[in-house]
């Protein structure tokens, strides 16, 4: 056989090698950040981080901790490469996307290092597929410098309360305006579309509200087209934390429970469109 269909033994020196019994643990998370073709992968001893950016304004990260994998080893301190996320997802779901109970695709991932392609070995029901995806020089990633000490307002909501709202956002509005305040309206999502304005208010004592820490009234606007993709992450998640800093940068962190009950995180960072203090009616 000119090309070995056997996955390499784990003793070989690969910059990154990982095994996952259920590829869906990875593919569903990657879909939640798939709003651009290309992504940057960073593998460290703690796990895999896949980053997607757009317009220098928005960054989404999917974190899959090492513990999720059956095997995860990174030879150097960190390994980073740019790869087509579209192709990666197509390969991970090569056996189909429907999740029949009892069937799952097993994955083995290997990366020899800088300049080498990412190798995927996928197996389901005795059928093996080998994929080789070219990698590229990673781009410099945005640093939103968002740390917990700089957070001005933070709330944690149960995702079910936001899912419908995000799915039904008035896309004729250019912006999504987010108001967070210790006073009414507490937490408000607003759009200004062709038909008129719409406001969605969540009171601080709503049973959807898991945590409410708002110190200052802030109203920020974000380009709705940039935030709309986060709906996918919201749909997968059970909880979402919404934080803003003094500059109005937005951090959305989604807690996602996979089929086996393990927790993973996806986060979105977004720059404000313009800083205003008055909301339109």
């Amino acid at each position, binding site marked *: 056989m000119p090309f070995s269909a056997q996955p390499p033994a784990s003793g070989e020196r690969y910059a990154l090698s990982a095994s996952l019994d259920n590829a869906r643990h990875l593919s569903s998370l990657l879909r939640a950040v798939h709003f651009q073709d290309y992504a940057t992968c960073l593998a460290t001893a703690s796990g895999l981080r896949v980053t997607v950016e757009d317009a220098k304004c928005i960054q989404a990260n999917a974190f899959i901790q090492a513990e999720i994998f059956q095997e995860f080893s990174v030879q150097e301190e960190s390994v980073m490469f740019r790869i087509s996320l579209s192709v990666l997802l197509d390969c991970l779901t090569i056996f189909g996307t429907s999740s029949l109970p009892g069937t799952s695709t097993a994955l083995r991932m290997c990366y020899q290092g800088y300049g080498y392609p990412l190798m995927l070995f996928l197996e389901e029901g005795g059928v093996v597929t080998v994929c080789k995806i070219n990698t590229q020089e990673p781009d410099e990633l945005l640093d939103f410098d968002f740390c917990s000490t700089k957070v001005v307002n933070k709330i944690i909501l149960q995702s079910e309360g936001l899912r419908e709202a995000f799915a039904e956002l008035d896309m004729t509005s250019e912006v999504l305006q987010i108001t967070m305040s210790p006073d009414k309206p507490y937490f408000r999502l607003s759009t200004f579309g062709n038909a008129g304005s719409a*406001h*969605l208010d969540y009171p601080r004592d709503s049973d959807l509200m898991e945590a409410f820490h708002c110190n200052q009234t802030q109203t920020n606007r974000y380009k709705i087209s940039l935030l709309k993709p986060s709906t996918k992450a919201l749909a997968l998640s059970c909880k979402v934390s919404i934080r803003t800093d003094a500059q109005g940068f937005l951090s959305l962190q989604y807690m996602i429970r996979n089929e086996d009950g393990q927790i993973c995180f996806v986060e979105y960072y977004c720059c404000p469109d313009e800083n205003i203090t008055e909301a339109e009616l």
Partner: protein
Amino acid sequence: LSRIGDELYLEPTESGLSLRAVNSSRSGFASFLFAPLFFQLYEPGSAGPETELFRCKVHMKSFLGIFRSLPSLEKSVGKCLILLKPRASRLVLQLHCKHGVTKTHNLAFQECERLQAVFDTRSCASHLCAPARVLAEAVVHFPLTLAEVTLRTGPGGKISLRNYVEDEAEPSKMMVTELWLAEDEFQSVAVVPGSHITFCLKEFRGLLSFAEASNLPLTIHFDEPGRPVIFTLDDTVLEVHLVLATLSDLQSDSQSPSTNGVSHLPAPSDDFADDLESYMVAMETGEGGSERPPSPTFPLRTPRPAESEPEEEEEEGAVPGTPPHKKFRSLFFGSVMTPGRPGLATTQEVLAEDSEGE
């Protein structure tokens, strides 16, 4: 209402909130009147001696967008508050949902003139009343694309529905479907034998779905071809009217309405459709003068010839331009001669107009 027109007219009245729509060729009009009892709270605002109750129109799509998903609305929305804010130029719809969540929509509206079709079910010679289900089951036999259907009263009290076929169409290439309903399928039948009318089925289907969903009997009031057909639904808290123009027979084209005080209609021009927009007719529905309430109840009565009453409100005008190939008498909005207002000129063209730009 969205099956009729693109704009939703909201008119609060003392007797309830009226939602109305009219189609672009003014050949179809529908109104839903929700009595105050329908609401938990109903405050139509105060009309002064010189001011009327405020009314407005909004884009149908914008309004419907708020009530996008009915199943999820039923599960999550507790109550809906509708506020008309003339000074802010906004129609506010606020949905109070579960978990304490509030959705507020501020819709831009346009001011408008009163939209009211002039019609009177009592002047119709024939009346039929059937459960909506019976009519829905009858109508299901016709293709969804069928434009017009003919209702005919036949021998033995049978009522037939037949798809309308254009005269120009090749008979051998057309499929004709005819359906007969026995008198006992109807709750009441009081018709002129041998009468028939042809009306737009598409617009009727909208009302029929509503009637079926709300399990209300549907009453059909009709007269001669060319005179509008009126469909009504009645409930303790809701009154629905759908008025559709009917196709007139070729023979009766020369008929001129024998209404008092209304001068003869001039020949319509080619850009009639544009002229329509420039007519502004202040609509009254005869509240001032006639004894009839705006939404009359429909007592059943034996057929009698149409009478020309002193305040006959109906007028007709041929509109060859809209729709071009049809012979519909499409204008049945009329201005009313009310006693005490002799100065009100009877407009020949009869339309309910909105005051856009005027």
